[in-house]
């Protein structure tokens, strides 16, 4: 099983719709321990990404490049920039390719996670989108089948939310809220779960 450019375009459309649908939920989650803009930012960002997808392009890397370009132009929030980093990382890792086998997803997501950590300075366990990515990347290790990958990824994202909910945020604005963040979902992790869920339908 492998993903191609059409899969990516479809995923971009679905991500756009999912971000719009999750707008209020994510704003509210961010409002509890941040500045309440995760939803509005992601809605705008994924609309820009979907809009930017070149219709006839077959090169997967070129699609990711277009996504990265759209991100770089249209967001400045922390999470938005991490999406930019993700797109740039994926563009570099898929140069010249028209398909991406499912078996490579674990490695790609791990590369994204590492780049995000390098850029944003987060550690594993800080309770951020990086922890969600890490969980999903690890869940895909050795998985080659599409349906199995979908199930594993979905389960991992939910499990990560459950695992981290009771912990303290140790990053960014949320860090300032200290113990008050216990019991709350990190908005970035939540956003990742919601988008993943839509993208891999």
């Amino acid at each position: 099983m492998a993903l191609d450019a059409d899969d990516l375009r479809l995923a971009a459309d679905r991500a756009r719709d999912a971000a719009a649908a999750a707008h209020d939920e994510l704003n509210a989650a961010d409002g509890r321990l941040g500045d309440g803009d995760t939803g509005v930012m992601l809605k705008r960002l994924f609309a820009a990404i979907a809009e930017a997808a070149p219709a006839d392009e077959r090169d997967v890397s070129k699609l990711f490049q277009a996504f990265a370009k759209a991100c770089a132009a249209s967001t400045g929030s922390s999470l938005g920039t991490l999406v930019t980093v993700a797109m740039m990382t994926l563009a570099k890792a898929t140069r010249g390719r028209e398909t991406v086998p499912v078996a490579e997803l674990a490695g790609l997501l791990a590369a994204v996670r590492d780049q995000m950590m390098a850029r944003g300075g987060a550690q594993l366990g800080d309770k951020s989108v990086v922890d969600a990515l890490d969980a999903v990347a690890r869940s895909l290790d050795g998985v080659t089948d599409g349906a199995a990958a979908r199930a594993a990824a979905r389960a991992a994202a939910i499990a990560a939310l459950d695992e981290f909910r009771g912990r303290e945020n140790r990053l960014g604005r949320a860090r300032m809220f200290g113990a008050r963040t216990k019991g709350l979902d990190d908005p970035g992790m939540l956003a990742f779960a919601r988008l993943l869920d839509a993208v891999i339908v």
Partner: protein
Amino acid sequence: MKKLMNAPDAFVDEMLDGLVAAHPALAREARVIRLAAPARKGKVGIVSGGGSGHLPLFTGYVGRGLLDACAIGDVFAGPSVDACEQAIRAADGGRGVLRLYGNYGGDRMNFDLAGEMVEIDDIETTTVLGTDDIASAAPAESGKRRGVAGIIYAYKIAGAKADAGADLAEVTATAQAAVDACRTIGVALSPCQIPGAAAPTFAIGADEIEMGMGIHGEPGIWRDKLRSADDVADEMVKRLLADPVKHASDRVSVLVNSLGATPLEELFIVYRRVARQLTKNGLTIVRPLVGHYVTSMEMAGLSISLIHLDAAREALLAAPAECPFWRV
């Protein structure tokens, strides 16, 4: 919280249009405000940037002897990578560009990415982060502190250094020393609201004050019943003076800054007390600033910034400079 605005999505762009319309020395390119005159050849450039909603910060400090260009994001959201890159290019006069901005995660990633992008064109860049808010982390973790109003001292001092022809390393060291010598603490009395948002950035009781709250409503040190201006000023000064500074001096400048709705009358009442307390502590105040320098739209509250001055910094602070909201 009422706003005189049109569509919330147009808030920032219309604001920037108005800014450059009213101030012809500034020019706009998408989400960058830069000097209308082209970058001065041979001068080190200084760029800053951050979210909208803090005017005069950031874009209002573009001017001779201050910033060369500024990347500006949506309200309380960082500037995009593209805007950061454009700002750096606009500020480049061939001797490198200092990125001088507040220590916020998103902004840092964006300016870093932008710096990598201009490397291709051999534009050398350095970074100095504003980290003056003492309420945002303990002294031991001062590198984690947010940048707030005190950054304008770094703009002015580094800007004068660049204006005088110093090289990138010197301008960077000067900016870093200014940041290191500067401390800020704020109090909030009422929130503001992001255009289009359903609710204010935070809730606070009708008779409450929060000590140490951040300019986006980041939680502070304590929240309690409103106290007298003198009590509030005394605690703020005490906290500022208690925070260790490497090269403390007995000459300081102080900025009493409104976060928005707090009027000049109250700033002066507080300044009167701050000046008295600093003097009592053996400090001499040089070029104090009282007014709206770094705001959060209609938030009520104020911040006090204290910068220790050595002879070099004092001279740079006094050097001529001119932007829409500050002239020396």
